[in-house]
């Protein structure tokens, strides 16, 4: 029997229906709302966007998100890669990997709470409950208010938490890719005269490039949307504000739908290039297959 032209459309209708009403329509509506005032009654043009690009806290958020991208992505990907390659030579590989992956199993809010204890600060006279300050006082150093020293140390401390959570995830994906490299290739390189270091740079890294790119873009998308860690640990105070937390505040605390939507649209626009890169990579791989 010949397949009628309408048949493929019938198959995608349910998915298309769901996608349209739960993804396409809300997105378009968000763009629409972003041109209106706080309760969506008065058209205000690009005023909300002007606010986003002129308000000091918003600019601060952009700076912090940039800092997150610049530090978090290279740290998670490179640590994940190094651990993936090194752990392959360890006898108790699966145990080590499980431990490093474990933070992934903890909710981000939970992780935030754990790290709040790590960074906990009390005046020098009191007993230190935070491990970092406990260590500092053990070495006769003044305790530091880690999450308050702005703008670099506290942001850096937050980024560390993110890295702690996500490195395991990067490691697992990169490790799978590393194990996919035929051992014969590495042996061939060894016989060809390469040191282990050269093998890493000249063979392993180029062969893992597609996976590294996917992990890096995924981590970038992740970090552009970073919210929970900041929300739980500092709530964006002390110059640690990030775009997503700002969006949340505008929406649910200040009830300014227009501004919140504008921020959402900006976030979406920032993420789109990453998605395009990922799709292109995916297509290239499909083409090779």
């Amino acid at each position: 029997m010949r397949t009628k032209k309408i048949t493929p459309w019938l198959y995608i209708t349910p998915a298309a229906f769901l996608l349209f009403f739960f993804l396409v329509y809300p997105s378009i509506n968000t763009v629409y709302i972003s041109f209106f005032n706080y309760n969506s009654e008065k058209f205000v043009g690009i005023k909300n966007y002007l606010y986003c690009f002129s308000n000091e806290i918003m600019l601060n958020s952009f700076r912090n998100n940039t800092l997150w991208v610049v530090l978090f992505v290279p740290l998670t990907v490179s640590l994940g890669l190094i651990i993936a390659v090194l752990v392959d030579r360890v006898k108790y590989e699966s145990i080590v990997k499980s431990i490093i992956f474990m933070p992934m199993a903890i909710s981000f809010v939970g992780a935030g709470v754990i790290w709040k204890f790590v960074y906990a600060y009390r005046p020098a006279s009191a007993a230190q409950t935070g491990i970092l300050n406990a260590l500092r006082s053990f070495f006769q150093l003044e305790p530091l208010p880690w999450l308050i020293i702005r703008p670099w140390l506290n942001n850096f401390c937050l980024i560390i938490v993110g890295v702690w959570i996500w490195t395991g995830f990067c490691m697992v994906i990169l490790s799978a890719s590393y194990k996919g490299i035929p051992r014969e290739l590495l042996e061939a390189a060894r016989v060809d005269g390469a040191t282990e270091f050269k093998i890493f740079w000249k063979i392993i890294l180029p062969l893992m490039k597609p996976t590294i790119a996917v992990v890096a873009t995924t981590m970038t998308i992740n970090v552009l949307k970073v919210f929970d860690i900041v929300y739980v640990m500092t709530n964006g105070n002390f110059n640690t504000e990030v775009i997503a937390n700002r969006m949340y505040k505008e929406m649910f605390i200040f009830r300014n739908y227009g501004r919140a939507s504008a921020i959402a649209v900006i976030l979406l626009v920032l993420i789109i290039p990453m998605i395009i890169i990922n799709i292109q990579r995916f297509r290239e791989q499909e083409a090779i297959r």
Partner: protein
Amino acid sequence: MANVILKNFTKKFKDVTAVDNVNLEIKDKEFAVLVGPSGCGKTTTLRAIAGLEEVTSGEIYIGDRLVNDVQPKDRDIAMVFQNYALYPHMDVYNNMAFGLKLRKFPKKEIDQRVQEAAEILGIENLLDRKPKQLSGGQRQRVAVGRAIVRKPKVFLFDEPLSNLDAKLRVAMRAEISKLHRRLEATIIYVTHDQVEAMTMANRIFIMNDGRLQQSGSPLEVYKKPANKFVAGFIGSPAMNFIDSKIIKENGDYFIDAESFKVKLPQSFYSKISAYEGKEVIFGVRPEDIHDKKFFSEASPSNTLKVKVDVIEPLGAEVFIYLACGKHSLIGKMDTRTQVEVEQNMEVVVDMEKTHIFDPKTLLTIV
């Protein structure tokens, strides 16, 4: 160029002994083939020579230098892997140049060597292609090219032809032989294919169960197998083995296999006299079983009455599966042989070329 010596080489993987106390000496410029069934330890031996496996005990020398603790890169060897192991992200040129670049050769010399190797192998027009764009045979050539640009002391080949189709394999076999003559290098070649071993080697090392069974020139191991395993492994189709007894009648020795009785040649007598009345294994190569009509030395004492089971005509020769009482035999016969399945026929065994093995030690008696 160099010789390669293994002294009491043993390799264990945990409790499993892969190679057990192997001694072998491969001479300079020799084409040595390690052959044996899968799991016989031949690849492990090769990898140990390459430095990719640690030596459990024993010594490995390359060109008089003990290399047990020498890194693969410092052993001055090149290896061609079974699956070629070409670097997929590099083009053919860089695949071949990689080893030279690592050794910091001047660019001009790298260029020259790669060109030279490419010419020898007929792949000059493929230098800018990626391995993915090459056929199996072309990849094979690149893998060989990558080895020869380095001009190492010893070439190691690990079943390099096993992934090629039958026709290409025959062609590459001849090419590698030619290459050996041209390079005048020591080559150690691992294969499970006894035809490859026979056609290419100066010297064959036959391994089984991690032990070296015999070494020698191809004809030596064919004509004078050291034991039943070698006799059965070398030659195609494999040698026929028949459990039988040696008996003495009227001063002559016979093989008595119940379903047939054949007289042994006088030249055997000195070696078999001790086995009189004892069980032995009688071995006949298929090519030494002839149709009575086309063999001049037929006599009642070397002729068997058999029934034809299966006929496999190959054009230049014909394999005939024969039933002789409870025994079954394969004969490689003259194409003029005119028989049908289920038909009875008479075949003659060329007794001078037969073998007799001790059933306990499996060693060759004659």
